């Protein structure tokens, strides 16, 4: 009796050894556990950001153009890259390794487009005068409250730390997928699925970073113009 058949007939004896209790290999389980730990890293950073935001006067400086337009296009790129990645994994499951490679390359390109757009967006803010521990002077002027409390200078620290760490994950993911695309014919299907898990996780984190960092800091009244 094969291992899989035995596992089906003796589900209760899953933990007695000789079977895969989760029905996934140890590498895939390892990636899931890594994703859980990395989620906590981002959660702690976002929680730290929320802590600072709740305890300070916080600037809301992002104009529609360039910040919101760029970040929305970046979101579109990342969501589309997840779709191409899942198409790649599907192709790999069908045994179509060449198709999987094409979809993975499309994923890498979309990921790199995200990074390039993000760098341009960072450049806009840096040229305005935003630094990790300083705000541009005109931001301080418009966001100081009527009782004279200035906005928190830690806006830049939280922004660059969270989006920077996320960008690092995207770059690492692009590198990881490049290796997978290069070796796709030698790799097992599960290995391609594992690389997909990592990529989707990067997308998932952005689903929280985008609204909390960008949408919650929209300059609706055009104060920074």
């Amino acid at each position, binding site marked *: 009796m094969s291992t899989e058949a035995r596992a089906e007939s003796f589900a209760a004896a*899953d933990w007695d050894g000789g079977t*895969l*209790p*989760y*029905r*996934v290999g140890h590498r895939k*389980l390892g990636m*899931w556990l890594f*994703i*859980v730990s990395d*989620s*906590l890293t981002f*959660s*702690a950073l976002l*929680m730290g950001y*929320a*802590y*600072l935001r*709740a*305890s*300070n006067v916080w600037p809301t400086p992002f104009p529609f153009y360039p910040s*919101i337009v760029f970040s*929305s296009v970046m*979101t*579109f790129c990342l*969501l*589309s890259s*997840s*779709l191409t990645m*899942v*198409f790649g*994994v*599907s192709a*790999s*499951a*069908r*045994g179509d390794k060449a198709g999987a490679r094409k979809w993975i390359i499309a994923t890498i390109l979309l990921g790199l487009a995200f990074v390039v757009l993000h760098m341009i967006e960072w450049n806009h803010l840096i040229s305005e005068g935003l630094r990790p521990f300083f705000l541009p002077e005109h931001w301080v002027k418009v966001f100081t409250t009527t*009782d*004279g*409390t200035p906005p928190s200078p830690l806006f830049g620290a939280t922004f660059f730390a969270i989006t920077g760490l996320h960008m690092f994950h995207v770059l690492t993911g692009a590198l990881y997928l490049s290796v997978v695309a290069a070796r796709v014919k030698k790799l*097992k*299907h*599960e290995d391609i*699925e594992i690389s*997909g*898990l990592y990529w*989707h*996780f990067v*997308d*998932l984190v952005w*689903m*929280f970073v*985008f*609204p*909390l960092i*960008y*949408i*919650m800091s*929209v300059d*609706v009244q055009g104060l920074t113009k």
Partner: protein
Amino acid sequence: MSAHAEEHFAGTNKLFSSIWIWLLLLTGIEIFLGYKPMAIHFMLTILLGLSIIKAALIVAYFMHLKFERLSLILTVVPMLVICICLLFVFFPDSFRSSGLRYKFKEPPPVAVEKTEDQ
């Protein structure tokens, strides 16, 4: 893991494309809401709610967790949710430190009374 040429991977490309469209729609709603004047707590609740729905769609369909064994889901998801909820323990302190901020240009009233007494 298996010597089969074809592996089982549930979900069709049509299903994944429809999930992608949903994710784009929800993102569009988030951007729209960003320009609607409303209380920050209300906006935060709606945005986080939408983000959790988006995250659930990604995890369930793109990351394939919906099609995995229940034991894996129960191992991965509840502990993450509990650990994230535990981080909320810091929030009362953030509101406290917000209240501690010195907001008056004039000396605080209590300090003035003390000098008068002396």
